[in-house]
């Protein structure tokens, strides 16, 4: 079964670790973390993802820069703002996004 590949961006390493751990606890999903804009761009260009969760910490200019890179890419995957920093809203955000695809 193909796993849903999710790129998570958050500059707070401990929150990033928590979100990736929660995603990877689900056997149908695989999370990859990035804690800077540069790292997010590198990771995004090096692998194939189904969605991006934009967590806390990037400036609005950095968020826009990343969203523009995604929009210009062939994949045009959805970039969803993540809220809450933990398990509370995480899976609803993922299911909502995947349901819209």
């Amino acid at each position, binding site marked *: 079964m193909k796993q849903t590949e999710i790129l998570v961006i*958050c*500059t*707070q390493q*401990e*929150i990033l670790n*928590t979100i990736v751990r929660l995603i990877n606890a689900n056997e149908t999903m695989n999370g990859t973390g990035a804690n800077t804009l540069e790292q997010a761009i590198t990771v995004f260009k090096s692998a194939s993802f189904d969605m991006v969760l934009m*967590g*806390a*910490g*990037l*400036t*609005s200019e950095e968020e826009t820069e990343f969203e523009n890179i995604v929009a210009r890419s062939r994949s045009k995957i959805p970039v969803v*703002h*993540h*809220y*809450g*920093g*933990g*398990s*509370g*809203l995480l*899976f*609803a955000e993922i*299911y*909502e996004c995947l*349901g819209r695809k």
Partner: protein
Amino acid sequence: MVLNKNKKKMAQTVLHQAATRDKSDHGWLKSFHTFSFGMHYNPERINFGALRVLNDDWVSGGKGFGEHPHDNMEIISIPLEGALQHEDSMENVAVIEAGEIQVMSAGTGIYHKEFNKDKDQPVQFLQIWLFPNQRNVTPRYQQLRYDNLMKANQFTQILSPNKDDDGVWIYQDAWFNLGKFDKATKVDYQFKNKANGLYVFVLKGDAKVEGQDLTERDGFGIWDTESVTIEAALDSQVLLMEVPMNF
């Protein structure tokens, strides 16, 4: 088709009866979720405007939530019975008890833990999350006692977007009011912002809102209107949450 310009727009409503809420039972924690939370996902129950989480939590004596993170969310706790011990990464150490309200603007990220202060008795509290109107704000904490300000058969404002207004403040154009009412009391609520919606949550008793009968822990959202009439069918306690519908 010719529309009558003077015709009032019909208010829109949504009813969430208490029995239709999802439930999480971890033994030490029982939580009823009005909206999708954790592993519970219902696409029909995601949010009411900026109101994203309304959890009705019961935590056993001495138990609680270990350290965990939050970001970009306005997190409001309202104990209804008992007291919570709170500690966070901003070095706040506090006890919040029934009659108080606590807000954390999680912003760029905070860590906190909260436990039932009493070793024997359960604590019962509402955990309410609103989407913020700004992402990545500097985290902040506020706690306020409101029960000494309450008057019988009136709503008391306990939250607003304004630092110098009554109650705690948050990064969202939202207003919360709480009231205790004797049976047959009728009160009107005027919206602060006509573009907002109002979510009515009955904490105790029975109430009628714009003709809709509500019982304990029912939720009722109403928007596209400027005022709402709330009538206590029994001695009742009601929480009103006015929130942006578009944000």
